[in-house]
């Protein structure tokens, strides 16, 4: 048997400009991002869909979850463009945070930085796409559905 310590699964450290936690039982989310997919989880027992994804279902207490892609479009619920940032995010300024409503769930994230925010309208259709940040980290952003 190997005497080396078991390697910690720190994949989640790759999420966002600065990640505040490295370990989670939904670490596979990062692998899906690497493959260009933003995924939710669906409870295998009761069918509830969760975004952000979770390892455990609070409705039926099952921990049997399946991955399900966040596909199609959602509507823009609200957004805000930041002119000040917390430590570690200054290089991203200005950037906008936003929420999309997909009906069965909602997705909190950022607006695609290439987008002119004057074009944004509450209620408009947007989609969630994977984004690689300049520092090599991964997140997802919202862009209009053309």
């Amino acid at each position: 048997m190997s005497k080396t310590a078991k390697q910690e699964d720190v994949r989640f450290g790759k999420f966002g400009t600065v990640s505040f936690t490295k370990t989670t039982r939904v670490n596979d989310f990062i692998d899906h991002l690497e493959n260009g997919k933003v995924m939710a989880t669906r409870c295998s027992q009761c069918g509830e869909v969760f975004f952000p994804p979770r390892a455990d279902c609070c409705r039926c207490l099952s921990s049997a979850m399946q991955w399900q892609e966040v596909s199609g479009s959602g509507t823009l619920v609200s957004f805000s463009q930041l002119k000040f940032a917390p430590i570690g995010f200054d290089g991203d300024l200005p950037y906008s945070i936003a929420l999309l409503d997909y009906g069965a769930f909602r997705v909190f994230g950022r607006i695609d930085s290439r987008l002119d925010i004057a074009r944004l309208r509450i209620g408009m259709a947007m989609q969630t796409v994977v984004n690689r940040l300049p520092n090599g980290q991964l997140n997802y952003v919202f862009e209009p559905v053309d």
Partner: protein
Amino acid sequence: MGKVAIIGVGQSKFVRSYPGSIRELAFEAFKEAALDAGISAKQIDASVLCSAPEYDKQRSPSAIVAEYLGLNPQPTFYVETLCSSSSTGLKLAYSLVAAGLHEVVAVIGLQKMSEISSAESQERMGRGGDIQWESPFGTMMPAYYAMYAKAHMARYGTTLEDLAAVRVKAATYGQINDRAVYRKAVTPQMFTDPAEMMAGPVASPLRVGDCCANADGASCIIVASKAKAADLSKKPVWILGVGSATASVNLSGRDLFTGLRAAEQAARQAYAMAGVGPRDIDVAEVHDCFTIAEIMAYENLGFAEPGEGPELIRTRQTYKEGRIPVNVDGGLLSKGHPIGATGGSQIRTIVLQLRGEAGPMQVKDPRIGLVHNIGGVGVYGNVTILGNQ
């Protein structure tokens, strides 16, 4: 008359940087409340300390505060619900007394936000939401509330002028409150002149003037059973209703962006318990951490229908002479917002109003007052209703 009375209130000055330790800060509020109640530490059965622990260097600060205030060997409890910690503390004290476990309980709220460096503080600011799924996007408190402001403006036609009007009102009363951190006047023009600090963008549509300031401060509320209040106090103020609720931290769990569900639910509970409605409220303190928060509070508390909150400020109905005076002590916007101390400061203001002791801020003959205190971006909703009969 309720089961539990408030017999003493105290508050330190709210300042940018308190030149002392947290135990000394707590003492300032506690001394005023104890003198107000006319009692000593030995007559207090238990204490509840309320603060947001990420700002305290001291681990388990309730113990050191209890020691410094002479509250050993009585039990102490530590509660935290972010910016509404001391309203939660008051509800705990109410429960302890109503259950008959204790007769006199001191609720001490404090925050020394300058305890940590500004770099440390900036780092904590980034962790105000869901640290796993929101913070990696670079979120901050003003940006979350800005999303509510944006939604309210889009749905109801609320304007930047309406938001500025809330700040102008707050400053009207901040100037006459000697405990406030911001004592200057604010005019609507300060929001339109780009050279003015107030007009500076923070998170669209919110500007510097739409945001309250950090502060150091402490508050203390002493509650007593009906029997003890009859014995100790000539001017008890009764706790008639205590409501509290929670909502998801992550905005993806919310279904409303023009108001706060936790505030609506807490208000419903408090009104039902007190047997009163919004029209019975003579004076109110609401959690105006941002200007939009006050407008949403008008609606969530039933002072206005959804979407009609802006009309209340446009017609000056929430000024001291209006139909429902709100935050006539300057609110968080002018008083400052020392997280754990804020709820206790709001409760103190209403107690002084109901006793007719609010000085230049006094509204005419109030009988029933309300405190709305929110933790996080509507994560914790707390509504407390007080009466003087």
